[in-house]
C-alpha cells in the first residue's frame, strides 16, 4: 500500500521502490494489470492510496482486484470511513487485519463478519489486559 507521493504505508514481501514508481507513473484510464519482472502486478487506487498486489502468471487478475477491494472494505468497516491518516497512525492494526484476511499470499477468510470478529476479539483481549494493568497501577 502506498500513497500518491510514493510513501510506503504498508508492505509485505515483494513491493519495492522501483515498482511503486512504475505504478505511480500510470495514467488513470490504464488497465489495472502490468507485467513486472516475472510477476503480474494488480493495483488499484483509492483516494490518495495505491494498493498493489504481486501475483504469478497463472493467478486470476480480476479476483485479485476484488481482494484489494475487500481489504479496503475491511479497513473501512473497522476504522469507520477509513482515511489515510487512520492507516498511518494505526498501521499495526492494518497489518493485523491483513493477516486475518490473507495469509501466506492466499485468501484465508473472505467473510467480512468473520475477519472483523477475529480482530474485535483481539481488541477485547487488549482492553482487558490494559484494564488490569491500570487497576494494578492504582493499587500499588
Amino acid at each position: 500500500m502506498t500513497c500518491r507521493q510514493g510513501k510506503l504505508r504498508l508492505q509485505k514481501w515483494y513491493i519495492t521502490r522501483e515498482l511503486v514508481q512504475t505504478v505511480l507513473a500510470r495514467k488513470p484510464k490504464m488497465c489495472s494489470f502490468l507485467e513486472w519482472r516475472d510477476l503480474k502486478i494488480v493495483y488499484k487506487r483509492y483516494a490518495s492510496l495505491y494498493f498493489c498486489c504481486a501475483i504469478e502468471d497463472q493467478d486470476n487478475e480480476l479476483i485479485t482486484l476484488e481482494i484489494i477491494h475487500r481489504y479496503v472494505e475491511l479497513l473501512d468497516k473497522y476504522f469507520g470511513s477509513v482515511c489515510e491518516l487512520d492507516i498511518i497512525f494505526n498501521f499495526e492494526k492494518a497489518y493485523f487485519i491483513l493477516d486475518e484476511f490473507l495469509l501466506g499470499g492466499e485468501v484465508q477468510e473472505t467473510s467480512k463478519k468473520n475477519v472483523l470478529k477475529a480482530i474485535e476479539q483481539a481488541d477485547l483481549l487488549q482492553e482487558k489486559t490494559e484494564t488490569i494493568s491500570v487497576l494494578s497501577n492504582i493499587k500499588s
Partner: protein
Amino acid sequence: MPAVSKGDGMRGLAVFISDIRNCKSKEAEIKRINKELANIRSKFKGDKALDGYSKKKYVCKLLFIFLLGHDIDFGHMEAVNLLSSNKYTEKQIGYLFISVLVNSNSELIRLINNAIKNDLASRNPTFMCLALHCIANVGSREMGEAFAADIPRILVAGDSMDSVKQSAALCLLRLYKASPDLVPMGEWTARVVHLLNDQHMGVVTAAVSLITCLCKKNPDDFKTCVSLAVSRLSRIVSSASTDLQDYTYYFVPAPWLSVKLLRLLQCYPPPEDAAVKGRLVECLETVLNKAQEPPKSKKVQHSNAKNAILFETISLIIHYDSEPNLLVRACNQLGQFLQHRETNLRYLALESMCTLASSEFSHEAVKTHIDTVINALKTERDVSVRQRAADLLYAMCDRSNAKQIVSEMLRYLETADYAIREEIVLKVAILAEKYAVDYSWYVDTILNLIRIAGDYVSEEVWYRVLQIVTNRDDVQGYAAKTVFEALQAPACHENMVKVGGYILGEFGNLIAGDPRSSPPVQFSLLHSKFHLCSVATRALLLSTYIKFINLFPETKATIQGVLRAGSQLRNADVELQQRAVEYLTLSSVASTDVLATVLEEMPPFPERESSILAKLKRKKGPGAGSALDDGRRDPSSNDINGGMEPTPSTVSTPSPSADLLGLRAAPPPAAPPASAGAGNLLVDVFDGPAAQPSLGPTPEEAFLSELEPPAPESPMALLADPAPAAEHPRHLAPPAPSGLSESSQSSDRTWVGQRDSDGALPPPPTAGRMYLFYGNKTSVQFQNFSPTVVHPGDLQTHILSGPLAVQTKRVAAQVDGGAQVQQVLNIECLRDFLTPPLLSVRFRYGGAPQALTLKLPVTINKFFQPTEMAAQDFFQRWKQLSLPQQEAQKIFKANHPMDAEVTKAKLLGFGSALLDNVDPNPENFVGAGIIQTKALQVGCLLRLEPNAQAQMYRLTLRTSKEPVSRHLCELLAQQF
C-alpha cells in the same frame, strides 16, 4: 466513533508519528528519526528494565521508522521478549515486528521458535493463530524444520477451531512452497482432501489453496479431490445469490472459492467418471450462461467477481481442450470483451484468446477477430494492452493471414514502445520465415525490420536471413538487388551494412550485369559505409572485399589499394590487421584457380531449429513460442498454421513449399550413409563466438582441421578435399566425420584427404588401415615433407606407450607442385582411448618451415564389432551392467530429420549391430557390439529412443568400462 479508539494506549507512538508528519523537510525528518533511534537505543541498552508497555511502544516506533524506508538493525531481542509475554497485546506486536523484519540470526531464531512452540501448544486459539501467522509470514527453512511436522496434526485435529484450521492450512502451504522436502506426506493428506466438504466456507477456502499446491507434486495422493471439488463448485454455482450469506460478494456467490476450485481442477485432466464430468460441464455451461444475463448490480465489484469466475472457467475449458462446443462459446464470449469499455476486460480477453488460438478447435474462431485485434494494436492507449494485442496476432497467425499480420506488426513497430521492440522484431522475423511462400517477401520483411528498428534486430535475426539466402538459390539474386538498393539510403543501419556486405560478397555477381550496380559501384557503395562501422562490421567487409577480388577481377587493384593502406595494414585492431595482411597476400600470391577455390560461395547451412525462436523463448519463458510449438498439434490439422509438407528424403535442398527454417523437417543429407557426418564439418558461421561470415571458426570436433592456426604472416594453411570414403561403407565412413573439413585459413598449399580401408589383408578386429593423400596445390615443391602420427597425452595415456600402435610407411621427402602422395597407416588399438590421434605434417615451402597439426578421424568406435543376440540375452546383460558409472545417458535435440532408415544406417555405420524385437516400443533402436582392443574387450549395449513429437532423442549406453560409456555416448549423440 471509530472502533480504533478502544483500548489503544500508545500515546508516545502517536506523538512521534505526528512529529514526523509535521517535519517540513526531508532533512528535518531524518534528524527527528535519528534522535528517536538514539533514544530507543539508549532505552534498550539502559540499566533500567523496561516494562512491557514501553517495549511495545518502542518496537512499534521502530516498525514505523522501517516503513518510512530506513533500515532497522536492532530491536529484535526486545521483540522476542514481547512475543514471549503472556499479554496478548505485547505478544501481537512482538510477532508483527518479527514477521516484518525477518532476521537470520540463529540464536534469535532459536528463541523465536521456542516461543512459537509454546504458543502452538497453548490450546489458546488466539495465540495459536498468532504463531501460525508468524510462521506463514516468515516461512524460512529453519521454521520449516521446526514446525513442518506439527502443523498437519493441528490442521486435521478434531478439536481445532475453524480459524486455527484456516491458518494452519495456509501456514503449511507456505512452508511447503519454501521447502517441500520438509513437509512429510502421510495419512493426514486424505483428511485434508475431505476438508473440501467442510461446513465452514472459510476452512474450504484455505484448504483448496493447500490442496492445489500439494497435488501438483503428488497428483495420485489427492485425486479424490476432483469429484469433491466438482460437487462443491456445482453447489456454489447453482446457489441463489443470497444463499451463502456473508460469502456472497456483490450478488456473486463465493467468488474466491469458485476461482480456487476451478484452479484446482486445472491440475487434473477431465474427470473420467461420466457423472462427475457431466456435472462439471453443466457448471461450466452455467457460468457461460450467467455471463449473458443482465448484471444484478451496476457496481464494478459485481462484474469483476462474476468475470473472475468466467475467466477461470475459460482457463479450465482451454486446459481440457476437448470440448469444441465450450471452446467456441468461450471464444465468442471473449470476442464480446474485446470491445468492452473496461480496459481491464479488453486486456484479459486478449490474453486469454492467445491461449485459445493454439487449440485446433478454436483457432478458426479466434481468427475471425483479427480486425478488432489489429485495431487494438493501433488504438489502445495503454502499452500493456497493445502488447497483449501483438501477442495475440502472433498466436493467431497462419499462412492465410501472415502477410496482413506481418505488415501490421511492422507498422506498429515504427511507434512501438522501446521496451517491446526487440520482442516484436523477433516475432515478425519468425512469422515471416515460417509463413513465407515466396522468399522475396521474406527478404523484404527482414530488411524492413532492419530499416525500421535496426537497433533491435539481434544477431540471430540477421544471421538467419543470411542462412536462408545462402541455402536458397532462387532468392539470391533478389536479395542482392534489394540490399544494394537498401544500402543506397544516406543513413542506413549498421546491421544493413552487415547483411549487405555478406550478401553482395556472396551473390553480388548476380546483379553485376546492370551498369547501375556494376562491381566498382557495389564496392564503392560498401566502402562508403566502412569508416562509420564498428570493428566487427569492418572485419566482415574486409572478407567481402576479398570475395569481390575473386568475383570481380576488375576490382582487384582498387581493393588491394584499400588493403594496403596504412590504416588497414597497421590497424590497431589485431583482427582487422590480420585480415588485411592475409587477404592482401592471398590476393597477390594465389592463382585465379586457387582464389576461386578458397573464396568459393559458402556451402548451404545445416538446417536446425531457428535460433530466433530459441531467443524468443528465452525472453518470454516457456510457452512463448506457442504459435510455433508443433509438438502439440495433430499432424492431420496441419492447415491450422498453414501446414508444412514434409520434405521428401531424396531432396537435398528444400523444395519451394518446404519449411524455410527446418522447424518441422530439415532436409536430410542426400546420401545418408556417406554424408551423414558431414554436417558436423561444414564451417558454421553461426556457432562461432564472433561474427566472421566468410572465415568461420572450425568446429572444435572437426577432424583433419588445424588445431593451431598458423601465425597471421604464415603463408601456410590446409585445404581438405572430400575423400572417396563412400567406397568403404563399413567403419570409418559414415558416422565419424570423414575428413571433409574445409579449412578456411588464409592460404592454400596442401590438401589432405583420407580414406580408410580394411586393406588387402584382412586385419585383426583390433586393427584398421587408413590411406592418407597429401596434395600440393601450389606449383612449388615441398621439401623435407614428413608427416607423423602422435597420440596426445591425456590423463588416460600410459607414460610409455599410447593406446594406439600406428605403423606408417615413409613418404617421399619431396612433393612436387601439383603432385599427390599417398601414405598408408596401419593402426592397432591396444587399449580404449578418448582422444583421437594427431597427424603432424612438417615441410619446407619456399625455404620457410611449415607445420600443421590435424586430428585424425580415428575414434574408439572404429574398433567396434557388431554382436547379434536374442532379446533375453540382451536384457540379461543390460541388467548386469547396472552400476551407475557403467551407464551414460544423453537427452538431446535432433539436429537432423528423424528418419528411421537414416538412423539405422547411422547406428550400423557406427559399428553396432541392430537388434530387432528387443525393445517393446518399435520406434526405439537397440544395439550391441564389442570394442576390440588388444588389452581387453569392452561389451557395449545401446538404446536410442527417438521422440518425434519433441524432436528429441534419449540415448543410453551401457558398457563394462565407465569412460567408454560416456565417450561413445558423446560420439554417437553427435550423429543425430
